[in-house]
């Protein structure tokens, strides 16, 4: 059951994804990444049996708490994992090629060129010793072999594209001369410099102020439209998903517990964890005196309980949940869920 691929998202209500239907750009099948301790005695199942698909031009939000495996999944796609990590199973099909089987040298042509990544902290992703122009031009010179003056001209155009005022002077400045919002936009410019097909953004706006965050998210959306980019947002913030994404993937303890079109999941969540998560967020309009908190904490990934990882915190738990791990059930409308409740409630919907 769990190794069937997801049906394509045809019922997506958002118009900007319509052009995206057809071949998936990225197809992740039964993918697992584990961290293994030096003695091999401790195994942390950071990403466990994940299957998901990203179409060209689509925006997918991957949501989860710390330790849910969302960042490890992103690093796996780019194959920039720490040494303790092992890709233990599964495939990463990107434009018809399996990234898992590529050599490190071959991956260098993928990273930054076909798949780019934006990290949370713009200060840490920019080198303080090099000028902005140098850093924006670097991928263009490396990947496209452009000469210095061409690359710098492109860098100036890119800064203009990400709304940096007076790019002619900014290219000669250093990161410390910019504000946080500007630095993050420069990281965005580096990300799109080689016109990648897929941009992975790991918590790209957490360090930004609200009004700057709004500017930045709108900019990403424009860049996406202009360049036909597919976007993966790694975030813990459901608000970003509500604003930006076509598809939502909810991760818990290394597994995808629910996925599907965003507004369908917000309107009718099927997995108890998703339901609880949606109820736990304070809303501007609500008059609730108390929020519905999820009691307890996520489990230790090195010592996962038998059965469903959410069972200990689940309000709807029953016997089977503690004994057997639920597989990924395919539901109507391109949705999936990993919950035993699904079998009883939507038997007909299961694929």
């Amino acid at each position: 059951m769990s190794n069937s691929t997801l049906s394509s998202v045809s019922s997506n209500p958002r118009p900007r994804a319509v052009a995206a239907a057809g071949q998936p750009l990225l197809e992740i099948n039964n993918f697992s990444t584990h961290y293994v301790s030096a003695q091999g005695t401790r195994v942390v199942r950071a990403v466990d049996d994940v299957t998901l698909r990203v179409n060209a031009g689509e925006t997918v939000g991957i949501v989860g708490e710390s330790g849910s495996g969302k960042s490890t999944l992103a690093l796996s796609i780019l194959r920039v994992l720490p040494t303790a990590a092992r890709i233990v199973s599964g495939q990463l099909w990107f434009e018809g090629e399996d990234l898992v089987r590529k050599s490190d040298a071959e991956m260098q042509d993928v990273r930054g060129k076909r798949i780019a990544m934006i990290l949370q902290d713009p200060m840490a992703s920019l080198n303080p010793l090099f000028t902005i122009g140098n850093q924006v031009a670097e991928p263009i010179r490396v990947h496209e072999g452009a000469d210095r003056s061409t690359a710098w001209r492109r860098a100036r155009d890119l800064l203009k594209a990400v709304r940096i005022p007076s790019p002619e002077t900014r290219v000669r400045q250093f990161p410390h001369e910019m504000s946080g919002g500007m630095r993050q936009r420069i990281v965005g410019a580096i990300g799109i410099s080689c016109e990648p097909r897929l941009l992975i953004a790991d918590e790209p706006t957490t360090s930004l102020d609200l009004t700057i965050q709004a500017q930045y998210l709108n900019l990403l959306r424009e860049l996406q439209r202009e360049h036909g980019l597919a976007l993966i947002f790694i975030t813990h913030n459901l608000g970003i998903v509500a604003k930006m994404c076509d598809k939502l993937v909810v991760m818990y303890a290394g597994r995808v517990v629910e996925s599907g079109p965003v507004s369908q999941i917000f309107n009718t969540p099927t997995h108890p964890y998703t339901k609880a998560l949606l109820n736990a967020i304070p809303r501007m309009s609500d008059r609730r005196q108390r929020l519905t908190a999820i009691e307890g904490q996520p489990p230790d990934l090195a010592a996962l309980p038998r059965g469903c990882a959410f069972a200990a915190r689940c309000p709807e738990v029953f016997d089977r949940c503690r004994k057997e791990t639920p597989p990924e059930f395919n539901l109507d409308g391109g949705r999936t869920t990993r919950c035993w409740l699904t079998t009883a409630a939507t038997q007909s919907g299961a694929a």
Partner: protein
Amino acid sequence: MNVLEADGLTKHFSARRGLLGGSRGVVRAVDDISFAIENGRTLGVVGESGCGKTTTAKLVLGLEEPTGGSIRFQGKDLRSLDPLGRKQYRKSVQAVFQDPYASLSPRMRISDIISEPLTTNETVTSADARKRVLKLLDLVGLPARSADLFPHEFSGGQRQRIAIARALALSPKLVVLDEPVSALDVSIRAQILNLLRDLQEEMGLSYLFIAHDLAAVAHMSHAIVVMYLGKIVEMGDAQSLVRAPKHPYTAALFSAALPSHPDEQRDEIVLSGEVPSPLNPPSGCRFHPRCPSAMTICSQREPELLNADDRLVACHLFSAGGNAN
């Protein structure tokens, strides 16, 4: 009845400009602000980096001396207090900070962390201190055995509970909450926000709640203060301010907040530009260069914080002069 009143509170920092430190500039971090925190209620403070909300918290905590203006606590001006009264004030006002990984010493056991304020401020026997620690742990929903453990044995949410227990050790009247949940996971935030609400009800606590998550502030606060570049631009009842912001900055800020549902329809006001340097704030209204409804008067005269229906707004659109335009 107000537990704390700030009147014309001002804090300026001097800044050295340039490498050689020739001319000196002044950062008006908090510039002539007045507000009150009611007994047993929560005052929320929102605004972006550099708006002065953290400086305000430090002034209230007595960690910074104001350049001007005054703070009255339970009717008494802090400047008039003798050292003993000052100490009493420090006991009555406690704080919970953003990062529970940084705010708890990794070398101290939980019982020592929670009882430290007791032993330094009061004369208690170790048996009494222990009893108080266990009571506080129970109050914040942690098991008694936590007392003998170290911070690294706890998750972020549990650490924040420990920080809250420590803040409550001296039975304060007012607790300053500076981003108390932003370092926590989404599923844990609700636990902590609920706990803070329960404690407020049980102990009659007042809160000064600072956060950038507007929905959390709206959820927790009875009244809200909106700050921009060291000034209060709008202040009033939380519910009505959130429902119908008046100041153009408040409107833009709340419209920039992320939606809670993908089907939510909103008119988004995207501000251009960034917050100017507080070293050199714009003339007139400090918001005018970014304001979508700026008028000529806005760059010339600084608007006063005036009554506008149910709240206070500092904007020429709502003062008599502005209406004519």
